[in-house]
């Protein structure tokens, strides 16, 4: 599963990072709480969120996330776009709500983490 395939599933639009869409997605983390994202054990994950702040990009960068999808039509602020460019993190926007976005990505062979 690549970022591009996820993008197509989510009918998402690329804000920045066309050149990084072939990166492999191993799992997905979906949260509006960055503290939860920082606690995940997942690697090479796509981050789905409803938060659109520069801290989302910082968190993704430090966690080695392969891309960020802003849900429900959120659009990242300009400074977040600048940061994402530097760190090679593709930013995508989808109109889907987070739950629907998760449903579309479920059952596609992405890793599931059952640890509480």
């Amino acid at each position: 599963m690549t970022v591009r395939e996820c993008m197509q599933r989510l009918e998402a639009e690329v804000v920045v990072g066309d050149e990084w869409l072939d990166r492999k997605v191993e799992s997905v983390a979906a949260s509006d709480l960055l503290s939860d994202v920082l606690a995940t054990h997942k690697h090479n994950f796509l981050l789905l969120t409803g938060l659109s702040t520069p801290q989302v990009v910082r968190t993704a960068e430090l966690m080695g996330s392969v891309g960020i999808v802003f849900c429900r039509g959120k659009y990242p602020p300009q400074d977040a776009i600048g940061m994402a460019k530097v760190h090679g993190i593709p930013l995508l926007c989808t109109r889907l709500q987070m739950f629907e976005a998760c449903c579309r990505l479920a059952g596609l062979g992405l890793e599931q983490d059952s640890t509480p």
Partner: protein
Amino acid sequence: MADTPIVKTFPTEPQNISIISELMYQLKVRDVMTANVATATPQQRLRDVQHIMRDRKISGVPIVENGRVVGIVSLDDIIRALDKGEIELPVAERMTRNVVTIGDNVSVVKAIDEMEKRGFGRLPVLNKDGYLVGIITHWDIVRKLVDMLQEVAMQAEQRERNLAPPTSPPTDHSEVTILEFPVEKDDFENAGRASSAVKKHLQQRGIDPAIIRRVAVAMYEAEINVIIHSYGGTMTARIYPDRIEVTALDRGPGIPNIELAMKEGYSTASDRVREMGFGAGMGLPNIKRCADTFEIESAAGAPTRLTFTVYFVPRKQ
């Protein structure tokens, strides 16, 4: 599914609207207008104006005499002239004489209002002495706004690229390298810079990415804590050949009950912090989980010193 183009409109966030309207009120017509205006004189032929429009790919030409706007010829006027066989007539005979103009010092918002009200796509711009200095179209405004928004992104990009370890250049790796970063209270804009710089440094050393991630997460949590809860302080990373030791030292106000602070879900963070996705009371437990050693010293009214170590050879799963 991927073959069908999808047309989408995104609902605009209130904060984004406010950025744009702020920009529009700051912007004056002179900041946006095209200064190099193609003009014609009343004595020229409509044919000449037609050629100017074709060559410059424009749809309106102000007619000027002694620096003053005396008329304007639009693409519609030219089409009508072609239709009626009047294209060789002097401009003066067919130009619109009551030209609506706008001052170079008025705001872009006012210019948009004016264009809307009059139903014009372009307005000649006059300076305070009444001389023609430019022309403004909807397109000029849109392009300028897009430029300005992109400028914000580019500045952020530049800041991020310059984010390098600020002290002691990496020396011989058998010694200790010390990286120190001031962290200010409530400075969310710079939150995570220290962690990012340290991550970069460790990457340059070729440390295992899984180890780097544990360091980065623990350090980011500690950095956020200093920003959220303290009066400001310093993050110091000491990098030894076999480990990294990070200290977050703040200037107070201290933690009255460390045991409580360590409890998952306990937090004293403000609503603002929570809206940004932090303050869930997971920070300290997460640091402890990521690190090989973890110590915290504090008391009410005293500075807080948090120190953790991560070894470069894994000791933890």
